[in-house]
């Protein structure tokens, strides 16, 4: 177990009664051996954690000034923007923080897909990650409703109406969700309550996610297990400093948007107060929901559309059993690697289609892209049997320490000087 030692009397006194210091040391300190070859794509897990903390911190302060009432919510946000000290900053950090949180998490997920991080023995770690994604989506959706602008109101109407597709009980379920016969004040109240609750549920699942991670440690770009101590380095100081540098880069991008393009991800319509009598010309969700929105609208049957939309995420729960290839990293899977990038392009294309009205060419492209989205998982299943992976290196430290292809490639990038 932990090699943690301290000469500080206070620390020793606490450690004896509650070994929190050795616990932390094992979690993110010298006691947590980590593959030595993680690249910068591995920064996005800790970045997601930072984004979550930022969202909770700003959200708690915003809630002190926000009024969850249909007639007052919109004006209370404007009061935050105008009269609360640095309220504009808190609000812009929170509203853009959602976008950055999703951006970071999506990169984190694609990293996992590329390097096969979902494979045995990390299936449960992956499943917990999918649970976090679903919780994030629910939280983000309900948070978007709170400003009670036109887009808030109509997004809430469209999305809650999806549940009416449920056979037999659909309409009753929607009435139950709304707390009435349309999206109105009771809906806003419960969304506020749940928007405050769910982030703490996310924190709980994140703890489980990290717990599961620590069972076998991080996957790595080569995707083979560590063979011995020479393959690993202590998390601190190597990855604490590398993550800290990543935080800096993240904050620069985040600050650039907050201070110079704070409404970049927003819809102008959401600066118009909610009006149940006037429907906006185009109802679009936030960018991070656009691919799912495209899938929903690609299918002419409402129930099947809803099933496909939720299915597009739920399918990740069984991905570890769809992809049966024993090789994790796409570096050694020449065909899977190509299909991975086509899949990324398909997701981006779905997002683009989702931002446009489902007519003419967009409807056709949306349907093709949706079909391909699900076809990808069939391809992944077939590739497990058809693809011939490249030979794997015998250990992590072999290509790192003895030169060779990987080291030559990395030498061109000073950040990964090896």
């Amino acid at each position: 177990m932990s090699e943690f030692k301290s000469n500080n009397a206070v620390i020793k006194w606490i450690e004896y009664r509650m070994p929190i210091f050795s616990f932390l040391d094992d979690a993110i300190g010298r006691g947590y051996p980590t593959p030595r070859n993680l690249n910068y794509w591995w920064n996005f897990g800790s970045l997601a954690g930072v984004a979550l903390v930022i969202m909770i911190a700003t959200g708690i302060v915003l809630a002190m000034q926000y009024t969850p009432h249909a007639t007052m919510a919109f004006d209370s946000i404007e009061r935050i923007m105008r009269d609360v000290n640095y309220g504009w900053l808190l609000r812009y950090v929170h509203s853009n923080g959602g976008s950055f949180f999703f951006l970071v998490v999506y990169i984190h997920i694609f990293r996992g897909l590329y390097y096969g991080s979902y494979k045995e023995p990390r299936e449960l770690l992956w499943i917990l990650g999918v649970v976090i994604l679903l919780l994030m989506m629910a939280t983000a959706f309900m948070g978007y409703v709170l400003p009670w602008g036109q887009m808030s109101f109509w997004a809430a109407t469209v999305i809650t109406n999806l549940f009416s597709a449920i056979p037999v009980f659909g309409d009753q379920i929607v009435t139950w969700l709304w707390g009435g016969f349309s999206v109105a004040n009771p809906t806003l109240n419960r969304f506020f309550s749940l928007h405050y609750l769910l982030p703490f549920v996310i924190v709980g699942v994140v703890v489980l996610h990290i717990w599961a991670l620590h069972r076998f440690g991080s996957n790595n770009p080569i995707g083979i297990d560590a063979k011995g101590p020479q393959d690993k380095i202590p998390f601190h100081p190597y990855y604490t400093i590398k993550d800290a540098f990543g935080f800096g880069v993240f904050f620069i991008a985040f600050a650039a948007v907050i201070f110079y393009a704070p409404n970049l991800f927003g819809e102008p319509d959401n600066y118009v107060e909610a009006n149940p009598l006037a429907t906006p010309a185009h109802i679009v969700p936030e960018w991070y929901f656009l691919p799912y929105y495209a899938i929903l609208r690609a299918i002419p049957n409402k129930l099947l559309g809803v099933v496909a939309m939720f299915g597009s995420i739920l399918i990740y729960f069984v991905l570890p059993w769809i992809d049966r290839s024993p090789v994790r990293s796409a570096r050694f899977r020449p065909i899977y690697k190509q299909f991975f990038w086509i899949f990324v392009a398909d997701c981006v294309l779905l997002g683009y289609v989702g931002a446009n009205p489902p007519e003419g060419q967009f409807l056709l492209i949306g349907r093709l892209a949706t079909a391909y989205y699900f076809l990808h998982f069939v391809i992944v299943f077939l590739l497990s049997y058809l693809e011939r992976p490249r030979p794997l290196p015998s250990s992590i430290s072999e290509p790192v320490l003895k030169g060779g292809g990987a080291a030559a490639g990395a030498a061109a990038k000073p950040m990964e000087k090896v």
Partner: protein
Amino acid sequence: MKKLLTVAAAVLAFGTGAAQAAEGTALPEYHWSFNGIFGTFERPELQRGFQVYREVCSACHGLRLVAFRDLAALGYSADAIKALAADYTFKDGPNDQGEMYEREGRPSDHFPSPFPNEKAAAFANGGSAPPDLSLMAKARKGGPDYVRALLMGFEEAPAESHIPEGLHYNIYFPGHQIAMPPPLSADAVEYSDGTPATVEQMATDVAAFLMWAAEPTLEQRKEMGIKVLIFLLVFTGVLYAAKRKIWSDLH
């Protein structure tokens, strides 16, 4: 893969063209003083814009999220704001006898809306209520560019278009049929600083004023942003150097 990209690019090009056709004419761009990283509002421009709002727009449009005290940011003195607020009458109460009474406006009051409610506003304006302008510069695509263009976009309707009674032709309004009659005409206001009051000048000034009204903290935001970014760039540089140093013993 390459083919896929070509298709995607073609779709993009076609898509934006179609979107533009639906949205109406492209907005003429204007170089606002508040654009860019170092952008700030110009006080004389805001004051002129406020004058246009007060003498022209406020007949039909409210500005309910802006308080008189906020005008200090435009360069008005406390006394001037007090005097300005006192020009307005507000219903207040109830007093100790339980009666409502009228009083002079105070700097803490917000701009009163010209109509008692939306129904009254719609009734007085042929069925469509003039929207409140507090957030107008953020509530439309194009922001202040759109506001400025719209105010200059009233033209003779083309022969083939049929503009219904009570609507007006505007090249920048989505659908081109706007209920608002052309609000500005040359010399509609007389600027105290002697600037000639052309339609373009007034449209520009009031659009800048409405941008301030929609985002009064814009200057504070941009000023803080520079400091934050400089700090972050230096700090991230230090972190990068530390990372290089710490990792050097591994290689």
